[in-house]
């Protein structure tokens, strides 16, 4: 399964980067979104994969049931998702303004 996760991250990165290298702001932002997802997968995998248990204690238990998924990368990713959303929203509005004021979102020839 790690192989598939790696494949997902790789494809998300490749397509995200390709879009970021385009000259349109819309493509740039969508590429950024794909890249964020790829990065989250990469961080998620770094803790080791396990299907069995979430890092949540049962109602009456004092200890987690082994094996459980690593909570540290999860906490990191949770932060990353939210921040990523903030960045995305801001850049979207920025792109919107550029488009409104110049009639295009092509930034290739801007000197």
């Amino acid at each position, binding site marked *: *399964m*790690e*192989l*598939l996760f*790696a494949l*997902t991250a*790789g*494809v*998300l*990165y*490749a*397509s*995200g*980067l*390709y*879009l*970021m*290298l*385009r*000259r349109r702001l*819309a*493509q740039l932002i*969508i590429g950024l979104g*794909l890249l964020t*997802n790829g990065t*989250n*997968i990469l961080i*998620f995998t*770094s*803790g*080791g*994969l*396990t*299907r069995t248990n*979430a*890092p*949540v*204690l049962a109602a009456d238990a004092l*200890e987690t049931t082994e094996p459980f*998924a690593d*909570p*540290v990368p*999860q906490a990191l*990713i*949770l*932060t990353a998702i939210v*921040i990523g*959303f*903030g960045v*995305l*929203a801001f850049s*979207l509005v920025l792109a*919107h*303004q550029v*488009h409104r004021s110049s009639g*295009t979102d*092509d*930034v290739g020839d*801007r*000197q």
Partner: protein
Amino acid sequence: MAFLILTTLALSPLAAWLGRRSARWAQLLALWPLFLTIWFARGFHSALTNEPLTDRLSWIPSMGLELSFRLDGLSGLFALLVTGIGTCIVVYGAHYFDGHPYSGRFQATLFGFMTAMLGVVLTDNVLALFVFWELTGFTSFLLIGFSHRKSESRRSAIQALIVTGSGGLALLAAAALLVQVTGSESLFTHTQSGELLRAHPFYLPIVLCLLLAAFTKSAQFPFHFWLPGAMAAPTPVSAYLHSATMVKAGVYLVARMSPAVGGTQLWNWTIAAVGAFTMLGAAYRAVQETDLKKILAYSTVSALGTIFFLLGLGTPATLTAAVGYIVAHACYKGTLFLVTGIIDHQTGTRDVARLAGLRRVLPVTAVAGGLAALSMMGLPPFFGFLAKEIAYEAVLAQPLIPQVALGALVLASALLGLCGLLVGYAPFVGELPQDLRETRRASPGLWLGPLLLGTLGTLGLFAGALSTPLEFAARSVVGRALPLELALWHGVTPPLLLSVATVALTLLLYWQRRGIRRFARPRGLNTARLYDGAVGVLDWISLRISRPLQDASLSTYVLVFVVTTGALIGTGLSLSIRVHLPSLVPLRTYEVLIVLLVVAAAITAVRARTTMTAVLSLGTAGYGVALTFLLYGAPDLAMTQFSVETLTAIIFVFVFWQFPKVEETTSRVARIRDGVVSMAFGWYIFVLTLVTAINPTSSGLSSFYAEAAPTLAHGRNIVNVILVDFRALDTLGEITVLVTAAVGVAALLHIASQEKLAR
């Protein structure tokens, strides 16, 4: 002592404030350097009769750095020059810049420089020496670039900074080596460890670095060109920094380190040869100039060469002569610069060909100039005469190369005497030209400083009384006491005959001065052009590098960033890949389907013709990723991701519905290039993910949180507990970022709606 030096720096804001006012107030600033002069005179005297004064101040105790100061003969002499001449300069500057918009800035920088220069000559710590050394260079940079609206000033300032600053780096290297060899940062300890240093394998690099520092600072060939350039500075600055004090820092360094690393063939011959060449070359250049300041600049370079030459010959007598020469030169050259400043200030020209007869309009200035010129020519009873006498006597007595050395010294002295006459005598005699008849008289504040300094030269009358302090100062260089008898009349001796010959030669040259200017200038020795060339090449290279890297196109920046990172990661990864496939978690059909969905969505996003398709593809990929989170024990992530993806999709649709269709505007070559780069980087990420997944790094953090969550934080969802409890401050930061983004979004939308309303 440390307190006094640092107070000088602390006073510089006061200097800025008081300096802005009229000259009547600004000249009060001179009280501080005057007080310092008296203090150092007393310090010099007490060091002479008792022990050298020392003072230390903890600087960075954790690194063992301390500001330690030591006032012995040499340091005391230099400190007196710095503060004494500084007093004259502050008064003079107050009147010179009366009403000038930057007069406060001038006084403040001057106080900063005074601090740095006192630090250089008084510190006993070799690292502090470096710091003060660079500070003098920095303040010099500020003062040369004083008229910063002129491109010539800026160019000269940068040139001086680069040349002396690189010498400063050499000094740092020498300091590091000295500490390495002797195990001490104390200069005094270094001077006591001569045997050890001279036998050490690091001796050669130490000497080369020290000499590089000294030659750049004191403008010796081939680094001399920055000093004539530095004449772009206002004249009070030239008089103080670029003649009397800062340029002598190199001389001071060589004199100070002579007991430590001197006395070898390498040391003596290098210094003597460079000094002699500079002495003759610069003197020759000086007499060809027609600008008074340029004449003085080259003659200063020549005088510094003479001092190095005497230091290089290295006998106790020549070392003493060098110290005497330093004092004499500081007095008469400082005076001549100030006199030039008055002429420039009152008449607006410094051209020797246009100046004559000024004694009628600037009588006191003429007296000061005349006194300095006579001292520079080396006539009795001036101090210049005494200095030249002991120099001749010492050179006659030294064994190295008496005849050649003596010939060079006589010739250079005669040429320098001519410079003195050209600046201190020629502008004042003869018929006053018509256009200078309206010249206003100089105020007392202007002529007081140069008159005082010029009169100091007549101290030669008290030759006997001067012997003791001079001998004391030289003792720090020589390392032991030596007899010195200064007198105006020793009888008819070889030095006296040489003096007579020198003066005769000077007068002969003065008579033929117009002819001398027609001599050719040796172009091959113009090292300023080498400097310009080197700077030009650097400019060209940096332009060639930054143009393609910074072409103001976003995609280029992304490309450069990706390729660089990819190259670095790729190299690192290829060295560390260890994948054992059997350890992989086995596949399940529905998981494969989810991954295929994400891959398909990503590819669709790339190939999408409309923005809307791309947005939907992004959403699909996001949902797919959320599903995998759900399957692998991360329900929190999945929930957050689902809601964020939904929100994102909605906002995207709102914003992008009016965007134009995607049209490929880049060339085919660019697309192929970008595709290759992206795929290569995707491959790196593939390998990186695989490597990290198969070798998970356990920090023990997860087990800590698992245990601590119920007991310390009383929570059952460990991820939540981490976010709101253990790392609550991070979450606060995150919320702040979100709020900032929200404010930004709101502001932008507000602007948009305002514009719409305006229409």
